[in-house]
């Protein structure tokens, strides 16, 4: 019972954080709401019994990725965003549309799906189970995913480096006499 209350509480915190993310006008506040969403999701996983997934959620998403978000926002020094009133059509059609869509998804999930339900604390959360899934049952998809991430990293490196650095991998030979001496002494300018 206590676990159920906690589960509902963190669910509410998660939704509140997600709504706050959209409402806040300052990017830092939005990023912080996203951290709240991540952390309460981790708490939900923990309550469902998936301890390992919860810990990884905190370490990877809340602890590492969101820090990078935060650094980017801090470096760009992004200020408050300008608010427009928004179009009337969006309010007239969008809000009922979202409500209808949400109800439809919930209805389908409850009545028409073959997915079983899982009790609180019943998910297999042991690191050994997850390791067996990742490195035994789903080894090929796992490895393919890692190659995919490697490609993304290489793409990021190519995009971030200056074009002349790619075209000329060797350092430009020193031009002036002074530079030549410094280069010979192994020093940088």
């Amino acid at each position: 019972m206590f676990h159920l209350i906690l589960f509902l509480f963190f669910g509410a915190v998660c939704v509140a954080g997600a709504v706050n993310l959209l409402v806040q006008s300052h990017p830092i506040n939005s990023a912080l709401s996203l951290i709240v969403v991540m952390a309460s999701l981790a708490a939900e996983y923990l309550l469902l019994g998936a301890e390992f997934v919860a810990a990884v959620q905190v370490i990877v998403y809340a602890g590492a990725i969101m820090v990078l978000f935060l650094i980017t926002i801090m470096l760009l020094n992004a200020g408050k965003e300008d608010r427009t009133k928004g179009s009337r059509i969006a309010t007239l059609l969008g809000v009922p549309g979202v409500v209808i869509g949400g109800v439809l998804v919930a209805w389908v999930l409850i009545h028409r799906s073959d997915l079983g339900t899982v009790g609180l604390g019943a998910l297999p959360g042991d690191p050994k189970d997850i390791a067996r899934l990742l490195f035994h049952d789903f080894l090929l998809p796992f490895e393919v995913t890692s190659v995919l991430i490697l490609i993304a990293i290489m793409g990021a490196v190519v995009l971030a480096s200056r074009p002349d650095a790619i075209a000329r991998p060797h350092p430009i030979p020193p031009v002036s006499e002074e530079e030549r001496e410094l280069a010979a002494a192994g020093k940088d300018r």
Partner: protein
Amino acid sequence: MIGILLTAVAYSVWLERKVSAHIQNRWGPTRVGPFGLLQPMADGVKFIFKEDLTQPHVYKPLYIAAPIIAVVFAITSISVIPFGNWVNVGPIQVGNSPDLGSWGTYLQITDVNIGLLIVLGITSMGVYGVALAGWSSNSKYALLGGLRASAQMISYEVSLGLSLVGVLIMSGSLSLRDIVDAQAGRFWYVIPRWNVFHGQTLAFFIYLISAYAETNRTPFDLPEAESELVAGYHTEYSAMKFAMFFMAEYANMVTVSCIATLLFLGGWHGPLFGPHLLQDVLPVFWFCLKVFAFMFIYVWVRWTLPRFRYDQLMAFGWKVLLPLALANIVYTALVVALRAQ
């Protein structure tokens, strides 16, 4: 438990001042109590009664939240750390059975089977305290300090985490109690079977170096390099808010020392002798002694090594420590796999 940790934090400040003083051929605090032992209390009272300045240019909600975040995450991580083995408290009657069962406890608040991951998760959240303090202070020194701190902490977290994997492979568990229990016993009756003597020496040094960077201590104290950044991310903080950052830093040092003790130095294992009561107390004593030794080395290193340059710091983390940690994982995994065959 929080009381014990905060006392430990206060006295590690005293230890730091004393040891630094003796390294520099001074006396350190001597006036308050014998050997200056009451100095932490005097400092605490002073922090509480100082004027708490809030500059007009700060972003107030985050400026106030940042020290709270830092100190809360620093203190929470102690909750899963075991500091001793099972302790018998006394005989007790169980139900109607005639025999006396014994009542006792593990010296740990909660035993979770992923204890180590929880510590890593909580400490990784501690970055936000520093980063937000730097940003919300709205001053250039604080911002630079905050940026440096967050970049440094997420870089060294990688090698810190990877250096622990070798130990995890050897013990086959994420529970801190199991990891310690796997280190019981000795080689040739002399050398304790601690992980640091058991093929994980390299991992131990990688962990130690990354831990210094994680806690922003010299030689990696660039986030608060006083010669260039005034005081870094906590430049604009005063009174108790500053004290909270101070407490968070020392609490993190204690946690990191505890983890090093548990994973590499055999936790509470040590020679046991004497009467029954002494045998119950000795494991806790060994544990505290090892943690104390780490705190001492922290101070020792502070007055021995000069500060890194920022590019050196990043190059060292990514180009030296990370490959070494990865090589250690491969090596350990190979040895364990070959032995299992």
